[in-house]
């Protein structure tokens, strides 16, 4: 590859590398493992850079990182494409029956400012597939369609994983808020 191409590649990378690091870290937890995956992804991307169509580099890069994360987590690809049976949690109204979540919803700004650790823990506790889809949407800002293409799953499945992730995170945050309220007197 020419020096110009290499420079262009590195320039593209510079614009999104912190986000790739964030995504890999939040997916894998372990720093060394995340660095392995990101480094490998960068080298794979560089090798394929000639085939990059000049579109959305960030999305292209995230797709490569997602694939490398799947290699690290054997069950992830299967989990992602699983057809999930409908469940009562698919109805957001069920959150209304959760007293502690009502506290969160009443004043999200104040309550959630105090729940940084429980939030990160709740994220870690999500199934890998839900965590991945949630991060790609809510933190990294990709559209459903982009996520579906990245992960080779239907848009409907993206929505189901996302919905469950959101529901579980809220449930856990509600529980943490409830515990904090009782503990704090």
């Amino acid at each position, binding site marked *: *590859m*020419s*020096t110009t*191409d*290499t420079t262009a*590649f*590195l320039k593209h990378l510079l614009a999104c*590398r*912190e*986000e790739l*690091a*964030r995504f890999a*870290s*939040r997916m894998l937890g372990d*720093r*060394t*493992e*995340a*660095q*392995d995956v*990101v*480094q*490998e992804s*960068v*080298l*794979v991307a*560089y*090798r394929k850079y000639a085939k990059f169509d000049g579109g959305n580099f960030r999305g292209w890069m995230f797709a490569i990182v997602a694939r490398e994360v799947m290699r690290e987590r054997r069950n992830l690809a299967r989990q992602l494409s699983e057809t999930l049976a409908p469940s009562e949690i698919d*109805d*957001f*109204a069920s959150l209304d029956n959760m007293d502690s979540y009502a506290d*969160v*919803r*009443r004043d*999200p*700004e104040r309550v*959630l*400012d105090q*729940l*940084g650790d429980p*939030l*990160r823990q709740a*994220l870690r506790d999500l199934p890998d597939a839900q965590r991945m889809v949630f*991060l790609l*949407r*809510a*933190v990294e800002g990709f*559209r*459903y369609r982009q996520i579906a293409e990245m992960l080779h799953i239907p848009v409907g499945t993206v*929505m189901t994983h*996302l*919905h469950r992730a*959101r529901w579980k*995170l*809220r449930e856990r*945050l509600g529980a943490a808020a409830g515990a904090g309220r009782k503990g704090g007197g």
Partner: protein
Amino acid sequence: MMRCEEIVRYWGAYLDSELGPETQIEMSAHLEQCPECADRLGKEQQVERKIAQGLSDTPDWGAFWGDVERRVRAKGRSRILPFRWMAIAASLLVLVGVAFLATRKDPSPMARLALAHHQAGVEAAREGVAMDAGSVRALLRESFPGIDLAALDMACPGHEVRLQGVRRIEVDGKPAVLVRYTCCSKPMSVLLMRTEDAGPGDEPIGNRRVWIAAGTRFIACAVGGHDAGILQRAASAWAGA
């Protein structure tokens, strides 16, 4: 007109601006007339925003990006080596104990060769079948007549090892065996081959250390998520072969 119960169903897609135009219009119409739903959605939007904010910090990886950039530039200049396994932390180990030398700038030709074949072998063996230790030993015995199997031990000391597959490959026309296994759930692989010409050394490659040492009978190239210390200890467990 949408009812309140229907609103909750579209909640996520509404906040993500992913509704189809018709549903979007119906939903907006409902929200204009229903303060409860509007309030509720507003709050969920706040919750969602706070969650995203709480997860938005990026990690400080120190010298990592500098290393990566150097490797990309080096790769741009030449294409000697498949990078994958070096990137993952390749470790070259030796079965016959030799003193490790201190830093050397480039990987030795033997290291490159072993890594390259290791890479090819690992990719070929990705769909390896599960195997028991007995079959691996049989294959090793067949590939390296006279090998002393008693001294071979796949385990990082104290770790649980599961064999996944084994494949015979050739390195410069000479037999080599690639064994894939997991150790404490991390995928590992070892390339085992005879060699006369490996130079000893201990080299940093990427942000990991690569152990290269020479033996007159075998060279083993281990790759996986383990740090070099564990691999080095593993090497000494193999040293009697």
